[in-house]
C-alpha cells in the first residue's frame, strides 16, 4: 500500500464520499460539495491567512480544471469558494460532480498538508467528516452573498 500523502488523502476522501453522498441527487450534490469546500476553507483559515488560502485553492482548481472542466465554474474570492455559477448552470451528472470535487478536495488537502508538514491534515479530515447530508440539510442555507456580508460585518 502506498504511503505517500496524496494516496492517504485519496483513501480518506473516497471513504467520506462513499459514506455521505449515497443517494444524494445531482442537483443537491453541488450544494453538498459547496459545504465541504466551505468547511475546508474555514478550518484552514484558522491557521492560514486568506491570501495564502486563495492561492492554495486557486492552485488546486488549476490542477483539477485540466481534467474536470466543470470546475471552471467554481470561483474564488477573499471569503472562499463560490459555487453559484455551477449551481445555476447546466446540470452535471453525479459521476462528473463526484470526480471533479474528489479531485479538488484531495488536491487542497495535499497542498495544505505539504505546506504545513501535514500538521493540518488531521484537522481537515475531521472537518470533512463532519460534513454529512444530515448536517447539510439541518444547516440554514448559506449563500455566497451571505458569507460576504458576514465577513464585512466582522470587519466593521
Amino acid at each position, binding site marked *: 500500500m502506498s504511503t505517500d500523502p496524496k494516496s492517504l488523502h485519496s483513501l480518506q476522501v473516497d471513504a467520506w464520499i462513499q459514506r455521505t453522498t449515497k443517494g444524494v441527487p445531482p442537483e443537491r450534490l453541488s450544494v453538498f460539495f459547496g459545504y465541504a469546500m466551505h468547511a475546508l476553507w474555514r478550518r484552514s483559515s484558522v491557521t492560514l491567512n486568506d*491570501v*495564502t488560502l486563495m*492561492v*492554495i485553492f486557486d492552485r488546486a482548481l488549476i*490542477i483539477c480544471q485540466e481534467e474536470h472542466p466543470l470546475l471552471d465554474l467554481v470561483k474564488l474570492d477573499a471569503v472562499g469558494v463560490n459555487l453559484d455559477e455551477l449551481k445555476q448552470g447546466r446540470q452535471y451528472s453525479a459521476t462528473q460532480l463526484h470526480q471533479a470535487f474528489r479531485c479538488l478536495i484531495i488536491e487542497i488537502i495535499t497542498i495544505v498538508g*505539504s*505546506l504545513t508538514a501535514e500538521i493540518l491534515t488531521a484537522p481537515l479530515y475531521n472537518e470533512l467528516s463532519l460534513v454529512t447530508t444530515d448536517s447539510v440539510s439541518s444547516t440554514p442555507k448559506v449563500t455566497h452573498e451571505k458569507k460576504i456580508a458576514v465577513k464585512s460585518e466582522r470587519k466593521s
Partner: protein
Amino acid sequence: MIKKPGPERIETGVRNLDSILDGGIPKGTLTVLAGAPGAGKTILSQQMIFHNASPEKRALIFQTLSEPSAKTLKYLSQFEYNDLGKIKDGSIEFVDLGGILRNSGLESTIALMVEHIKRVKPTYVIIDSFKVFEDLAHSREELRKFTYEVAIHLMVWECTSFLLGEFSDKDIEVNPLFSIVDGIISLKTREEADEVQRFIRVVKMRGTNHSRDEHSMSISSKGMGVYAPKVTIRRDTQVDLYSRRSGPARAKLGISKIDQLLGEGVPYGSSFLISGVAGTGKTLLSLEFIYRGAKEFGEKGIFFSFEETEERLREIGKGMGWDLEGEIQRGNIEIVSVAQTDIRVEEHLLMMQERIERLKARRIAVDSASVFLYKVTDPRIIRERIYELATLVQRAQGIGFLNTDIPYGSNAISRFGVEETIVDGVILLTSSEKGFERERFIEIYKLRNTAHLPGRHLMHITRDGVEITPRIPPTKKKRGGKGKARK
C-alpha cells in the same frame, strides 16, 4: 531517538556546494542570492536550474530590468552547463518582465508572473533581479505587499526559487525580504594576496546544518566551482577508504637503509614533514620515496610539485637510473606540476584530493608544502591547510611526505612553525662542512607510535639515489638486549 528526515533536497550541480549546504537546497524553499554585480549570482542560479530542470520539472526564469533576456541568453552560451535542448523542449523558459515593469508597475507585474506560474506550474523559479522591484516601488508598503505576494505564490506552488539581487550585508540586516526567505547565499569578490578572489557564504538556510564559513570559489567555462576543503576534506573515522582491508598495517619506505631507522615500519595513514634548508635533498628523497613505493612494493604514488616541472623531475629520475618513466607509463606513478604563480590553495587542495582518490595512491609527496602555502599569511589558515594535507594522507591510508624549506641559519624545523605539530613524523635533513666537503645527514626527529633510531645519520646522494648509513648504536652484549630506541 529516531531522527526525523529533513526536507527533501535538490542537488545544486555546483561542485562542493551541496557539501557546504549539508546536502543541497531544500525543496520548495525561497533563497536570496545576494552580491554585487559580477559576483556570479546569475551563473550560480542558472547552473542549478540547468542541472535540475526537465520537461516534468520545469523552470521559469523571470528577467527584470537589470538584464534583458537576449543578453542573458547570449552570455549563457559560453558555459558548458548550458544545455540548449532544455530551452527548446520547454524545460526552461525565460520571461522578460522588463516591458511590463517599465510601463505598468508592480501590480501588473505580479499578475503577469502569476499567470506564467499558473501556466507553466514550475518546479524552479529564478527572479533576476529582485532588487529592481525595490527601485520601482512607490513606497515601502507597496514593496512589502508585492514581496509578500510573490513569496506566497512561490510557496504555495512549492517552487524552489531563487531571488537574485545586488544586496549588501546591511540589506540582509534591515530589508524585510530577508525575514520572509528561507535561505540567503552571499557571493563576494575581493582582493587577497594580490589577486581578486571570489567567495561564497551560506548565511542562512532553514532546516539545514550548513557550513557558516566563507569559502572560495571560481567561475570558469564549466560554471561555478566551490572550494571548501574544511568541509570536504574530513578525517576518515572508518579508516578504510579503499584497500586497507588486507596487507600490513605498517609500511616500509624502501629508500636505501632508511627502514633501519624506522623500527617496525611506519603506520599507514601517517604523514611526514621532510624538513631542511635548500639543497639538502628533500625533492630527491621524496621522489625516490614515490619511485621505490611503486617499484619495490607495488604501491601507487603521486608527486605534487610546486617547484619543479614534470619534465625536470622525469630527468632527475632518468639521471638516477630509475625506471620512473616506466612506472608512470604503467600508471603506477603520477607527477602533477603546478607553477608557483598559478597556485590557488583551496582549489588545488581539492585537485589533490581528487587525483589521490582517482589513482588510489598510497604514497603522496608534496614538494613543497611551504611553497604551496607561500601566499597564505594567516597562521590559522596555514595550520588548517597543513592539517588538510595530512588528512588527505590519512583518508588515503597512505604515507605522505610534505616537504618544507627551513630558512638558512634558523633553528626552526619548519617554514611556518606549525607543521611539525600536525604531522605524525618529522625527517630532518641537514648538512655541515667537513674539510672541503659537505656532509649530509638525515634524522628521524619525530615519529608518533613507532620506536625509531634517534640521532643524525649520514646520507649521501649517489648516482642511484639516496644512500643512508645508519649509525647503529653498539649492542649491549651483557644483557643480550637490542639497541636503545626512542619512542
